Structures are given as C-alpha cells and as structure tokens.
C-alpha cells in the first residue's frame, strides 16, 4: 500500500516536473510562435492605442474577443469581415445607444481618431491565425430549402 511519504513524493515530484515542462512550452509559444501567428510585425501604434481604448471601456464586459469575454453581445474577432469598417465606425462614434433589435450598446461617442484606432486593432485581430476559430457554419448548406 502507498505510504504517506510516497504520496508526498508523488505530489512534489509531479508538481516540479509538470511546471518545468509548462514553463518551457510557454517560452517556446511566446518567443517563437505567437509573434508569427499574430503577425506581431503588423501591430501598429494605432492598433495598440485601439487595444487600450478597448480595455479602458471594458468592451469584453459584453462582447467576446478571441472567444473570451461576456456573452451579451457578438463575438468581435472577425467583426470587420462580417460588418465592414464603415458600420463599425458609425457604432463607435454614435452618441445615442446603438440598439439592434432592442439590445443596447453603450454610446461611446468616440472621435474619428479613436474609432479608427479601435478598427485598426480589430483588423489586426481578424488577421490572426487562430487554428480555425471561429469555425465556418457547417450545417448551413444542409438545411432543407423550400
């Protein structure tokens, strides 16, 4: 039967080994892979300002981005592809709450420059290699047609 000492060795040994593996993998991911998959060289000053605006207004408190956030408003990863820049600019600059079919967004009333920065940020996000996320709807073509 397992003794208490053996159990402790299992715990401490496993912890050290798996943390080390995790640290090495994390280093590899961040140093080698992420810059490439996220096109870090395209991360412009404007896009970085856009990220700060995105954070400062807690956009993630309603939306998801890269699939993370809240579920009150649409996923923003590919929003520029889906809706286009002009549509996004109007929403961001609107002084009245934008409310598609009743669901209200905060009226940020951004300046032209701020809206452009946020759009730069979203464009950069939209070009990342996300291993296939968000997926293409695969049942769309299988629906019966009238």
């Amino acid at each position: 039967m397992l003794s208490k000492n053996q159990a402790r060795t299992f715990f401490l040994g496993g912890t050290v080994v798996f943390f080390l593996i995790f640290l090495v993998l994390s280093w590899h991911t961040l140093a080698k892979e992420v810059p490439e998959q996220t096109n870090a060289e395209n991360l412009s000053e404007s896009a970085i300002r856009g990220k700060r605006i995105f954070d400062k207004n807690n956009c993630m408190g309603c939306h998801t981005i890269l699939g993370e956030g809240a579920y009150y408003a649409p996923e923003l990863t590919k929003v520029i592809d889906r809706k286009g820049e002009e549509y996004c600019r109007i929403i961001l600059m609107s002084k009245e709450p934008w409310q598609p079919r009743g669901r209200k967004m905060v009226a940020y009333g951004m300046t032209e420059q701020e809206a452009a920065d946020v759009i730069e940020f979203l464009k950069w996000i939209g070009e990342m290699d996300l291993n296939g996320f968000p997926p293409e709807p695969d049942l769309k073509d299988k629906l019966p047609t009238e």
Partner: protein
Amino acid sequence: MKYKSQQVAYWFFALSVILLVLQIAYGFVMAFAHLGYDGLHEIIPFNAASATHKNLLVVWILSGFMGAAYYIIPDEAERELISIPLVKLQFWSLAIVGVVAVIGFHLGWWEGRKFLEIPRPLDYLVVINVLLFLYIILMTLFTGKKRTTTSLVLSMGLFFAALLYLPGMIWFDNQTMDSFFRWWVVHLWVEGVWELIMGGILAYLLIKLTGVDRELIEKWLYVIVGLTFLSGVLGTGHHYYYIGTPKYWLMIGGIFSAMEPLAFLGMALFAIAMYRKGEKRHPNKLALTWTLGTAILSFVGAGLLGVAHTLPAVNLWTHGTFVTAMHGHLAFWGAYGMLVLGMITYAMPLITGRKMYTKPGANYAFWLSNIGMIGMTTAFAVAGVTQVYLERKVGMDFVDVQLAMEVHFLILIGAASIFTLGIVLYIINFFKYGSPSNEALVTA
C-alpha cells in the same frame, strides 16, 4: 474552538456572505438584460454588472478562504495568531479595496480583462493586503507547535494563489500575450492552486467531522493535490487552442485537461469513503452535508461539465458561448462556493457557542440553494447548446439567436430565485448566530 484569535474568522465570513448577496443582485441585472429588460442600462450597463458580478465572486470566495485559514491555522499549529491588530488591519483594508473597486466599476474605472478588471493601482493595494495576510498565516504556522500536512497544503495553496496574481499585472500590447497570461491567473487558480486550498479545507473538515485518522486522510490529500498539478498545469492548454497560439496546445491541452476530473473525482470518493468509515459522532450534521455536497458537486460542475467542452473538437464550437457560463456557474459554486459555506457552517457554532444548525431554515438553505443552482446550470446549458447550433453551426445572426433564447433566461430567473431564497435563509441563519463569544472557548 481552542484559541481566542480564531474568532477573527467571523469578520471574514460575514464579509463573504454579504458580498455573495451583492453578487447575486448583479446576476439578476444581467439575467433581466438578457431577457430584454435593460432599464438600468444608463446607470449599470451590462459591462459594469458583469465586471461586478465576477469580481464580487472572486472576493467573497477569497474572503471565505482567508476566514477559513484564520480559523484552521491556529488550531493546526497549536498557537494563537501572531497579532490580532494586524488581522484587523488586513480585514479593513480588504473590505475598503473591495468597496472602492466595486464603486470604480460603476464609474468606468477598470481594465477590460475578464476576471481581472480591478485597475492596476488597486492591484498594488491587493498585493500589499495579501502579503500581510500571508505574513500572519505563515508566521503563525512556523512559530507554532505543529506543522501538519493539512496546514502546509492549505498555506502552500494560499501562497501560490498570491504569487499567481502577479502575471495578471503585466502590460502587453499583444492581445494574445495578454490573454496567455490572464489564464495563468484564472486557470492556474481554479484548476491549480485553489484546489490545494480546497483539499486542505476539505481534509480539515473531514478530520473534524468524521473522526477518521489524520494520517490516512492526509495521505490521500497528497494524492489528490498531486493529481491536480499533474493534469491541471499542462491542462492550461485548453485555453490555448484558439487565441493565436500554436497547434501543439490542441493535443497537450486536450489530453491533460481531460484528466483534470480525476482530482475532483478523487475529492468526491475521498469524502464519501471517509464519511462511511468515520464514526460521525459530531453533532453538526449539516456541516458534513455541505462538505459531502462540495466534494460531489465540484466533480459534477468542474469535472464532468468541464470535460464536456474541453476537447478541441468540441471547444471549437462552444468556445465563448453560454456553454462556458453553464460550466462556470456549477464549477464555482460546487467547488468553492459550497466549500466556503460549508466551512462557515462548521465554524460558526464553535465561534459563537450557538447551535443554529439544528434549525430547519439552515437545512432548507442547503437544499434550496443547490436545487436552484442546478436549475440555473440546466437553463444555461439549454441556452448554450441552442446558441452553439443556431449561431455557430447554422450561421444565424447573433441577435436573432439571442432573441430565440430569451425564454431560457426566464427559466434562469426562476431557478435563480430558488437559489436566492436558499442563500437568504443561509444568511438569516448566519446573523442569528450573533457575534463571537468567549464562552465558546473550550478545551478540545
């Protein structure tokens, strides 16, 4: 209760249950908004409610953990806490930082990073507060007569939880890196070091409530926390599938996170086995019910409902939908919410000398809150699966899908009302215990 300084746990428990009520209030604000009633939009927009709901959750659980540590460590180390004034300072600074953070959220003082919304200046105060807490706990432990496995595992969990707060405080320009380190906090907390805290508290409660031999319980404690790190550390990979990180995480995250339920299964089997083996002469049966409840529901909420969406082939579709919210609720409630409420149920009679656990209200509190939470989880699950199919599989527009799902939020509010009734009964019972009493000091 043997040591007078254990009474300080009362203040942390009181703060904990009060913040729980507030958290619930913001949950209702969001549920009504999803149902189409967002009349509070001008004062509490959804993002303010959501930041407040999530942060109050973390703070009430942490306050509960701190109270538990202040109660358990003197008992295990066999000495008084090193200083009551320091504990008071730590308590009030925690409460003040919490209140300032919540008010700040309503004024737009925040950082939009889920669960880590507290702005950086306040983060530094949190760090100082937690360092003070750790100083009191570790000094008490290491100058005490004994260092039991239970107290060491608990303290180790608290120490690493503090350490892991730091990666969340680094600034990044790259969203992927920001998210990468956000998970060092969020994932490595709930599926890593918090499980050590849970294991420690659970072991303590089982030793006290079942009367089973300490050596046996603590041996299994090591096995369980060993399983936690074995699976949970590389299991972090289940958050690195689709955020701009390399493909090897799909395999690593998938395999290791699929093993994470083992630690929770371990806790459930462990609690049940000790329950059957023990003499159960302890009069506080209700505390034992909560203890078994947390061990079992954590396996369901974290283990089963976690594994349900952890494989990359599933997560591709469910990532960032109500399926996540379904799991988030039962996992947090089962593993950490019930654990804190169970610890409070155990400790309050000993702190105040009153045996309120025999009152029927206390019993109803357990059942109503759990039935309500399981109902809420079910409502989120139905909404989540509907959302995944309509939005992700069929490609319907986001808002159209949300409108189609409204009825599930009506059911959510119904179940949440049952849950809230249970919590209200719990809190009435809590305050009926009254304040700590020196007459409750006993030997043994």
